[in-house]
């Protein structure tokens, strides 16, 4: 039935009928042709490296479409002056200096094979090539993967194995300060798009031998790698297995960002709250790793996913731990008050204005009535309109770069608001309410949680419009029940408050740093059972 309704609104189109504007055969005719079936994704390649150099070269040319793809470099050379070999790498992905100095120069040196015995690939890896990271493989899939990552593959005639060496040297952004999680005190480093750099940033903070970094494919057809980091012997095994299980189940076309990975692995896809914490700060990720969390890094994404994440994790700012306790506690209280104001104030005001005028004092009543004298819209519509405009200004300010983005915030906030009041489109009291709401929204440190708050705010406002305080209370109870039933990788979302778990660290106030010696009870780390 649902399918039929959906089909009705699609005007009877079948799935897959939507066309690209441009195809490989050019711009389609006016009446359009049906889209060509896309080639099926390749089955996993189980071939092995050939002993024939020519065949290996041919396979590479076919796989990488060398006839039209000039990126693949196939450099034949003579190994030790005796045996034919060739080197394969992708232009721009490999560092050509390393290739020249440590592979070609060392490989072409006469006499380097004089004492060769046994497997040639292994001998050259151990005795000829002076690259820091090298391995041999006979799996063709590994060779392709390595070349695509920027490593170099050396094939040797009559040898059924290839030598893979880490010559990655593609251009990448250097480590800069965080964009979304700025702090005053604390490190000013953020993750970058390079996976190796990100792992290094974490290892610089965590000098523990139990820190494990497992690499695997992300599950997308684009072959991106992910790294799963945790502390072996500390982190709960069930948690690690669950993370691996969910990542292993990914089978999709593209995984290009951490947001995609998050949505593909989460359990409650309809929940506005995120079930993992996305952070661009290595120090924050390291601190959570020490607590027994699992961190997932994705090649090409400057964010790390930390799981599990509770509401209190999402509401914690990275700066909290760097501040002194009174200041930190005060700011956290203000943050929670700001979040509550952001979510509840518009709905509360609307409920009082429409249904429960007796709760407002006479002064406020007369002020609001005076401000609404010439406003044509009902107060509910006015509130929703302003909330939407606020979101528009916010989005516009984010999309427009640099100083112009700041100017849009000023223009939108001040001038537009003032002009709207003067033009009697909105009343000033409602404008103040929405402004306070906006300020409260920015108190929430996590961006995804800010968006969740926006969702709650809008629905509560509509509920207040329809049902007054009854609607607000009922919907708020529903949301809280939802949060109470939500779990992030098995950990209840409202833990350690509800259910109550042992935690000497206060949830809202900033606890003493000495308390942080123990891992959080909700993580149920293995050291508790030792």
């Amino acid at each position, binding site marked *: 039935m649902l399918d039929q309704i959906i089909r009705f609104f699609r005007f009877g189109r079948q799935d897959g009928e939507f066309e690209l504007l441009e195809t490989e055969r050019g711009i389609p005719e006016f009446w359009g042709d049906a889209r060509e079936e896309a080639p099926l994704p390749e089955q996993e390649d189980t071939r092995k490296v050939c002993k024939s150099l020519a065949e290996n070269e041919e396979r590479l040319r076919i796989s990488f479409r060398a006839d039209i793809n000039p990126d693949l470099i196939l450099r034949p050379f003579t190994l030790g002056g005796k045996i034919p070999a060739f080197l394969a790498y992708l232009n721009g992905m490999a560092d050509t200096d390393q290739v020249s100095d440590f592979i070609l120069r060392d490989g072409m040196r006469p006499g380097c094979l004089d004492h060769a015995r046994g497997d040639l690939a292994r001998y050259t890896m151990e005795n000829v090539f002076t690259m820091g990271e090298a391995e041999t493989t006979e799996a063709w899939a590994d060779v392709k993967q390595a070349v695509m990552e920027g490593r170099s593959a050396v094939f040797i005639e009559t040898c059924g194995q290839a030598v893979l060496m880490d010559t990655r040297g593609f251009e990448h952004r250097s480590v800069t300060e965080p964009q979304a999680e700025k702090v005053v005190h604390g490190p000013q480093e953020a993750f970058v798009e390079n996976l190796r750099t990100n792992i290094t940033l974490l290892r610089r903070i965590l000098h523990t031998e139990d820190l494990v970094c497992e690499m695997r494919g992300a599950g997308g057809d684009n072959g991106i790698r992910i790294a799963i980091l945790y502390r072996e012997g500390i982190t*709960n095994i*069930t*948690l690690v297995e*669950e993370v691996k299980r969910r990542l292993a189940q990914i089978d999709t076309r593209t995984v290009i960002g951490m947001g995609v990975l998050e949505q593909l692995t989460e359990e409650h896809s309809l929940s506005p709250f995120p079930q993992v914490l996305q952070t661009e700060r290595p120090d924050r990720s390291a601190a959570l790793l020490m607590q027994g969390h699992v961190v997932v890094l994705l090649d090409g994404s400057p964010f790390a996913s930390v799981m599990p994440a509770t509401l209190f994790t999402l509401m914690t700012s990275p700066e909290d731990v760097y501040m002194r306790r009174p200041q930190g506690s005060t700011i956290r209280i203000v943050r929670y008050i700001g979040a509550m104001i952001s979510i509840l104030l518009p709905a509360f005001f609307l409920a009082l204005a429409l*249904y*429960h005028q*007796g*709760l407002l*004092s006479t002064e406020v009543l007369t002020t609001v009535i005076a401000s609404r004298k010439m406003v044509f819209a009902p107060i509910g519509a006015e509130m929703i309109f302003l909330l939407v405009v606020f979101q528009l200004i916010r989005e516009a300010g984010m999309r427009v770069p640099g100083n112009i983005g700041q100017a849009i915030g000023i223009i939108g906030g001040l001038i537009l608001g003032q002009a709207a009041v003067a033009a009697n489109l909105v009343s000033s009291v409602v404008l103040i309410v929405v402004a306070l709401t906006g300020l409260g929204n920015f108190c929430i440190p996590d961006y995804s949680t800010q968006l969740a708050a926006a969702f709650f705010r809008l629905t509560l406002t509509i509920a207040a419009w329809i*049902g*007054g*305080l*009854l*609607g607000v*209370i*009922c919907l708020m*109870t*529903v949301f*809280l*029940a*939802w949060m*109470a*039933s939500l779990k992030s*990788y*098995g*950990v*209840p979302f*409202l*833990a350690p*408050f*509800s*259910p*109550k*778990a*042992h935690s000497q660290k206060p949830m809202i106030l900033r606890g003493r740093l000495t308390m942080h010696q123990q891992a959080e*009870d*909700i993580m*149920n780390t293995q050291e508790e059972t030792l």
Partner: protein
Amino acid sequence: MKLCQGRVGKQEGANLIGIALVSSALFVLDIAEAYQYGNGTYVSFPGAIFLALVLFLLLAGAMRASGQKDLLALMDFAFGKFVGNILSALICVLLFANAHFLVSRFTTMVHALVFMKATLFPVILWIVPVVIYIAFHGFECIARIAKCFGVILGVCLLFSLLFPIDGYEAYRLFPLPLNHWDTIAADAFTGTFATIPAMLALLCMAQGMQGVQSAKKAGVIGAVISIGLVAAAQIAIGMTFTYTELQNMFVPLYRLNLKLIQESYFFRLDKMLLFLWLIGALIAGAYYLYGAGFVFCRRWSRYDVRPAVIAAGIILLCCLTVEHMKQLQAFQVVRQYGSWLLVIPFTAAAAVALVKSHFLKKKGQTDEKA
């Protein structure tokens, strides 16, 4: 606390029981007949909770002695499957009845005190789906949301009793019904129809509470706190209104500020307090509804509890609609005889189980010796 285990802790259980008992005692038991002979409700209402606690402890002791994991198993152990089924059906019906009483009361309150211009049905349609939704998510969700609100509701109740403290006068409690102790005791006994089901439901779900001991502790803490709060509330009501006013008053707890002369903004927040109590009623109603569905499924259905909860919720909606169109006599019967139907069989069950387990232990020891 272990990951991935759907268990409920003691704090959650205590909060849940506290909310359920306070809501039922303050809002379901509060009827005009309670003030016919003067005001003894500050004894009879907490007394009803106390009697429920006594029965609860008896049953918990019997469960521990006999090694039964929950109340349903205890009933089977004491009386056998057939009688156990009858008692389970009784628990089911009484839990449902309590859900009905509580939600009905709050529907009437919200309609009469806040939305008097609208009809009743929209108010029902706001409240009942929320109760169903919370119950649908299961015992964990109900207990956790009770933990979220338990302390807040308790503190708000205490503050709402403290604000009008200037208006309390001891003479309003007089004349003390010193010649009516038997009536007070009878009222306390009759009131157990609203308090015992909450405690029994906790024992039915003892496995979700990580065992009988944990459930017992949570139940005792919740009940003791409830006794204190209910006694304080009824004393406050008694010191604000005389019994003649209470006989004709609807929800006196809502009107505690009315005797005060000095204005303060806090005195206009009685509607906010009403909605806070509504949250407590939603949680308690969901608890009762889930309990009814849970007992039904454990007994007669091998399937998930959630469809039973939805079915019970829809029946609740129909009952509420019918009741507010015309009086539903069946529920008056429950109010009259419910306490007898609860106290006698379950006391007997506890006694039989204790005796049986004692003899079985003895027999086991004798067999070992032999």
